[in-house]
């Protein structure tokens, strides 16, 4: 039952795209591509939900041979475990809702059918990535979602900013992908089994368990993680994601918040068994740094979509941190809850933008007009904010758009980590507890530092998210003209918001807290160090929603009972401490935000002036873009021009020089030779050509025909002569 179901899940969206592509060849289109694509997605969603009860206790891959070379075979296949099913449901559910939302949001767009076809292609690619049982298949899906992201970011390609952004997204992620490919090559040649399959007897994971080569394994792990750095927009390859907001907002919700960017987390989680202590630490640090860097940038943004983009980057960093710190379940759990509440936030912001949009005739916004035809690889980015996305034009919208307001508020409470009744709290707490638990268990200063970073980022997240809510929905309208135009969105747009809001409550938690459902794979190369810390017997019991923190905490730890007991204690204590601390920082963040942006007790401008250098650093996004555009891109283009010049003047110069010298030598040594002669034979032929060319131009006569007959006759003659010899 599994294989046909997965096939349907994959083929339904692919078929929707193929119909569009084939009809497009004949300059036609399916009358209701929107309904076709949406239906395909709903079918996939249905099958995914059905798979929920099909998960086999011992997953086995279903494969076909893809490339066979000598004794090496690369196979393609499906792998279905609980994580796959959860990912399938997340992807198909968010995708279905985004499809429905887009029916309203994209209404009237001249390329309306194309949009849905691209969404279908994306969904197919993403689902393919998720179900693949081998690295090569994941890599294929990986690059295909990149293509779809490219096409959809550049959907309104008339805007130069969109055209730049889509190129930037593809190229930046490709840098990471190349790293991933190198990592794959290292794994392939360093391990005993020559394969890209991950599971089963002859798979990478069983080969990894027996290898001693930790250095290579660490390098390969970090390089494969490079792919995730690109795709999940981790520092230093994060700069493409904010620019990707040039795409239509439903795309931002689906691709750049819920699914594709989370693929990096998914990949890292899938690679869990190959991680070594050093590669884990690199992942944790990259994740931690990303979480804090992006959060600080988000504080000072005014574009509602960019705030959410940086927030996404920050939350993805959280997930990476979790996996790097060994909290497999926590990372994937946060992926799930984040997918729903972040998709909701984006769709909500889309609803707001849509409300303001009536003012603009169409999506070719004003700012596209004044942008020059910018054809250089180096470009300006994000300096100007479209008026309908600028939070400084908003305010007081909660009465105009009650559904949007309430649903977005729910998502904000969730992402901010407001305790107990919101899903985000549980997943974030699980991450914080996991990091602190590792710190206490291993007595590792690194993990204490990371815990501190994560805690700060949690506070900042609460702060900037409520800043967004206060600026958008509370206070007085700042732009009365735009405010008067605003209206609540039609039901096709609000229904997805309501569904996602429902999913922001802890409805998915039981999947993740059920120990039998998701189990972290073993990490053969990670053992707790000898000086592991034995915690005191403090216990802050906590039970809610029928789950105890102690149960939730003990997913980590080794098989050894004594070790496991220590770990158990450490994590139990850690989770309780983390929970208290995270509630405190979230409360502080919200309080500060309220004081700054609602009560106006403090002035944000005054603080910005006081801490000008820090503010500038945040406002200029730590100067990453300036560095990349100003240094890397410029250097690359300069190098390319240098190479081309070298080719034209040096290499070709030598060629032409040799030709000239040859001419001279010939001319000198054989006096009566014409000085045009480079090679006697060639010259004769050349003259024939010139003559022939001239004659053809004039009278279309058959000089060449004559020549060809001569050649033919010559060949026949030569053959006959030689035969006679």
């Amino acid at each position, binding site marked *: 039952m599994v294989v046909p179901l997965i096939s349907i899940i994959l083929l339904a969206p692919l078929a929707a795209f193929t119909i569009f592509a084939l009809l497009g060849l004949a300059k036609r289109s399916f009358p209701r591509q929107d309904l076709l694509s949406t239906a395909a997605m709903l079918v996939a969603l249905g099958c995914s939900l059905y798979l929920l009860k099909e998960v086999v206790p011992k997953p086995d891959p279903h494969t076909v041979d893809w490339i066979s070379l000598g004794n090496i075979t690369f196979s393609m296949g499906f792998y279905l475990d609980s994580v796959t099913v959860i990912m399938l449901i997340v992807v198909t559910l968010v995708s279905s809702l985004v499809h429905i939302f887009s029916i309203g949001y994209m209404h009237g767009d001249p390329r309306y059918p194309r949009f849905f076809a691209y969404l279908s292609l994306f969904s197919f690619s993403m689902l393919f990535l998720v179900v693949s049982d081998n690295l090569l298949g994941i890599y294929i899906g990986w690059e295909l979602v990149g293509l779809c992201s490219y096409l959809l970011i550049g959907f309104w390609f008339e805007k130069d900013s969109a055209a730049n952004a889509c*190129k930037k997204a593809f190229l930046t992620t490709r840098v990471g992908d190349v790293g991933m490919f190198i990592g794959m090559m290292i794994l392939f040649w360093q391990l005993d089994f020559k394969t890209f399959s991950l599971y089963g007897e002859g798979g990478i994971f069983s080969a990894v368990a027996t290898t001693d080569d930790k250095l290579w394994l660490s390098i390969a792990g970090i390089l494969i993680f490079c792919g995730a750095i690109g795709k999940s927009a981790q520092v230093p390859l994060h700069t493409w994601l904010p620019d990707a907001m040039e795409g239509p907002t439903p795309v931002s919700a689906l691709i750049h918040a819920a699914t594709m960017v989370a693929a990096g987390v998914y990949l890292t989680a899938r690679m869990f068994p190959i991680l070594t202590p050093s590669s884990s630490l690199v992942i944790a640090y990259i994740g931690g740094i990303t979480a804090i860097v992006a959060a600080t940038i988000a504080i000072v943004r005014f574009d509602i979509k960019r705030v959410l983009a940086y927030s996404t980057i920050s939350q993805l960093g959280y997930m990476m941190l979790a996996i790097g710190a060994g909290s497999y379940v926590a990372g994937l759990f946060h992926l799930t809850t984040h997918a729903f509440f972040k998709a909701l936030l984006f769709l909500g912001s889309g609803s707001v933008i849509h409300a303001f949009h009536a003012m603009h005739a169409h999506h070719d916004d004003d700012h596209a007009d004044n942008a020059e035809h910018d054809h250089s690889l180096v470009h300006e980015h994000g300096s100007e904010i479209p008026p309908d996305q600028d939070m400084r034009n908003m305010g007081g919208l909660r009465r105009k758009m009650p559904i949007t307001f309430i649903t977005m508020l729910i998502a904000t409470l969730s992402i901010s980590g407001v305790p107990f009744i919101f899903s985000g709290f549980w997943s974030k707490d699980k991450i914080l507890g996991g990091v602190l638990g590792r710190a206490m268990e291993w007595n590792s200063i690194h993990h204490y530092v990371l815990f501190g970073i994560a805690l700060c980022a949690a506070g900042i997240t609460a702060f900037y998210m409520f800043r967004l809510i206060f600026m958008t929905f509370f206070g007085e309208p700042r732009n009365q003209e735009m405010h008067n135009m605003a209206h609540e969105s039609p039901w096709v747009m609000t229904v997805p918001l309501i569904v996602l809001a429902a999913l922001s409550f802890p409805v998915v938690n039981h999947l993740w807290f059920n120990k039998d459902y998701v189990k972290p794979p073993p990490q053969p190369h990670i053992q707790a160090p000898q000086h592991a810390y034995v915690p005191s017997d403090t216990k802050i019991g906590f039970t809610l929603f029928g789950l105890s923190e102690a149960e939730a905490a003990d997913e980590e730890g080794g098989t050894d009972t004594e070790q496991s007991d220590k770990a158990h204690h450490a994590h139990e204590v850690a989770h309780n401490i983390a929970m208290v601390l995270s509630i405190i920082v979230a409360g502080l963040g919200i309080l500060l935000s309220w004081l700054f942006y609602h009560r106006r007790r403090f002035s944000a401008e005054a603080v910005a002036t006081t801490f000008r250098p820090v503010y500038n650093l945040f406002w200029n996004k730590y100067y990453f873009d300036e560095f990349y555009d100003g240094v890397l891109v410029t250097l690359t283009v300069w190098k*390319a021009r240098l190479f081309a010049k070298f080719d034209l003047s040096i290499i070709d110069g030598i060629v032409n020089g040799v030709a000239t010298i040859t001419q001279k030598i010939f001319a000198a040594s054989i006096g009566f030779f014409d000085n045009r002669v480079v090679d006697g034979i*060639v010259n004769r032929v050349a003259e024939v050509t010139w003559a022939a060319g001239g004659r053809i131009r004039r009278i279309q006569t*058959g*000089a060449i025909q004559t020549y060809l007959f001569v050649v033919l006759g010559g060949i026949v003659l030569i053959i006959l002569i030689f035969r006679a010899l």
Partner: protein
Amino acid sequence: MLLSLMIFVPLLGMIVVLLLPRDSEELIKRVTLGFTLIPLILAVYLFIDYKSTPDTQYAVSVPWIDAFNINYHIGIDGLSVTLMLLTALLGPICVLASWRNIEKGIKAYMALFLLLETGMLGFFAALDLFLFFVFFELTLLPMYFLIGVWGGPRREYAAIKFFLYTLFGSVLMLVALIAVYLSSGIPGERTFDIPTLITLAGTPGHALADPTFQIWVFLGFFIGFAVKVPIFPFHTWLPDAHVEAPTAISVILAGVLLKMGTYGLVRINMAMFPEGMAFFSNGIGFWGNSLALLGFVNIVYGSFCALAQTDFKKLVAYSSIGHMGFVILGLAARNTMGVSGAILQMFNHGVISAMLFLLVGVLYDRAHHREINGFGGLAGKMPIYAGFTTLAFMASLGLPGLSGFVGEALSLLGAFDTFKVLTILSTIGIVVGAAYFLWTLQRVFLGKLNPKYEELPEINKREILTLVPLGILTIVLGIWPNFALDMFRESVDELVTLMNTFQAGL
């Protein structure tokens, strides 16, 4: 017999075309199309009928020049049948692509084109070194005229440059060829027969098996083929030839002629001089890395040069140089994966670069220039054309799911075993490749529509017809690479086994 028929049907076509009255242009075109379709049908038949075994199939051997023991010996193995299929496929596509834009001397053009096709098909089937050389040279003359007469403004320069460059390579090759012949035995027993020579070269103690001899002869042939591939620094004829050549001729040039170089490397250099091959690619010391180094230089140098181009066609030409670098790198690996990847890359590059040049031609026919910066926003005006271009670009930059990826990935993966650093450095080409293609996409298709091109007509049915078969192949081979790999698996296995017995024990 079937094979000979396939090779010489175009030659027959040339005679027929020459006999037709020169003003009946429609008839000439149709006849030519017919005569290029026959080899295609035969090639498809061969492709289906071909059994994947290491043995040569459809072999024919009749004495030709007894005095020098030269035979008309032809036959195919997995490698040659793949490339013959490519050649036969591009034949009718090129005729269709020449349908409207050849304004003068259509009769001579078509006749020369048919002669060229015979040369190419014969080259891939030849199993006699002399015959091999004759076919190799036979492609040179029609190509020279096709560029020199029907080309762009600097056609004479480009044609002569192409001719002299190739001739320079051929001369070295001829010297090496004669050396091989003279060393093959005592007078009277000397031979040009390729399978025989391969056996002799593998016989310990034979003059042909002498390592020093092998290295020198290897070099002679190598330079001859390197010009054709082209391998840095023998590549500068290529951008000029491509820019000046008419669309269909560029298609043949990139699609087939470049493959003659790499095919020669496999057929002659690797199989006949395994000791020489090992010397240049066993990964030991400078010389042991030299072949891989050339592959790396081609990839990076070609890609960076492409990034700097503003002429659409020149950009595609330099991208070809980069992509042929992957072939060299894969061959240098001397393992099943690398060699299979290289051969797959040859075929895929033939298909993809053919698409790219056809697409450039479509635009040139409409706008009469190729300046990348002179366009903008065409995606809204010509969505189908933009769709095909995106497909071809994505295939060329190695997007998984399309054919370009498989060849590139296997070449890199194979090469990584021996040349770790060079392979890692070569991946720079993957990023730069994406950069120049996406930048071009942006400059030509995205942004605001250039008001000059409000009236640009969409790609027409005939043009779509030339692109569709190539597009289908790109997708099919991307999804199902075994379809092509099945053809030459046995041949590659045999070649790799042969080469692995030699490790340049100098």
